[in-house]
């Protein structure tokens, strides 16, 4: 029975041309096997409760939060981010926008709301739960971050420049690990993220549940952790830098069908 199921999955992979190159990799086998049991739905449920929960000095929920498609519209919102928000006067990714809504709608202070932006296996953070819930509503839609507004162009270009910009005591840039084809670290393939062929499938699966750490992780966490691995000072949550990098990589992978929240090693 199990073999039949696996065969089905292999056939599905052959049909998807974007994934065809990954077929021979043992890592792809591992990914396929773990993908059968994705616990992200549990986080989505918790995220939904949190989205509707009244809190903060204004005792308000996030249900009127405008993620770019109008107040409270979740469908397709994640796939169209990062994007420019006129009310905030800047380009925001999902997590930055959620923080903006916590400050404006719920009246919470930035310090209080960002006290615990990344959770652990015992307890996910608000941003992680909300990201899982919001991102799910873009499942099956094409990634299409904003690129028409001058600020969006600026953010994209900044992200591109930062991607190749070497910093820190080890003189690392994102491109050091993610600028060449065929690199890997331990069992993980390092995707070449300035190439749509790799950026698409990768960006289409965040946020994700990480099997090795039993927790849900977001793109802000990924940026934060990459900078940690590069030995730079910690970037601020929702900073121009992290948003620009997310913007650059998402736009590079633009057009890919979103299929998250997914599962990672």
């Amino acid at each position, binding site marked *: 029975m199990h073999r039949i199921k696996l065969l089905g999955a292999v056939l599905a992979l052959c049909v998807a041309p974007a994934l065809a190159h990954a077929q021979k990799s043992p890592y792809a086998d591992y990914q396929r096997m773990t993908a059968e*049991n994705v*616990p992200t*739905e*549990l986080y989505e*449920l*918790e995220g939904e409760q949190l989205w509707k929960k009244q809190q903060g000095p204004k005792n308000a929920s996030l249900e009127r939060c405008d993620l770019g498609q109008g107040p409270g519209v979740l469908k397709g919102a994640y796939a169209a981010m990062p994007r420019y928000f006129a009310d905030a006067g800047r380009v925001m990714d999902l997590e930055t926008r959620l923080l903006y809504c916590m400050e404006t709608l719920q009246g919470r202070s930035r310090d209080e709301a960002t006290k615990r932006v990344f959770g652990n*296996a*015992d307890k996910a953070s608000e941003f992680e739960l909300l990201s899982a819930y919001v991102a799910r509503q873009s499942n099956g839609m094409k990634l299409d971050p904003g690129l028409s507004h001058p600020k969006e162009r600026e953010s994209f270009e900044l992200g591109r420049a930062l991607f190749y910009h070497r910093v820190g005591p080890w003189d690392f840039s994102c491109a050091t690990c993610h600028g060449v084809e065929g690199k890997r670290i331990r069992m993980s393939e390092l995707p070449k993220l300035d190439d749509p062929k790799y950026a698409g499938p990768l960006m289409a699966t965040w946020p994700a549940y990480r099997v090795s750490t*039993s927790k849900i992780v977001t793109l802000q966490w990924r940026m934060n952790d990459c900078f940690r691995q590069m030995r730079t000072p910690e970037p601020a949550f929702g900073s121009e830098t992290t948003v620009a990098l997310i913007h650059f990589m998402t736009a590079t992978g633009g057009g890919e069908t979103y299929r998250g929240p997914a599962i990672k090693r």
Partner: protein
Amino acid sequence: MAGPMKMRASLGAGFTDVRVLMSHPMETGQRKGSDGKLIPMHFIQNLTVKVNGKVVIEGETSQAVSRNPVFSFRLKGGAKGDKIEVSWLDNKGETNSTDAAVA
């Protein structure tokens, strides 16, 4: 307070596939916390599946099962709209349940 559960029950030809996700820490009792002390055992011990109120599976599980486990199983027969109920009981006496109609 136990975290959420989620279940899907889909009808096949003469059988029903049920897949249930549950949030649980599933501590083995062998892991150490950041304070260096052992984290006490905390795991789902019993799993009960009912179809239209009748018990069809009573299972025992151990610490060997992972955090946030998924249980999937196939039931003989079944019809659209049958009510499937899954509940668990852990070693601390905490419990949770969910139900779904076969679709």
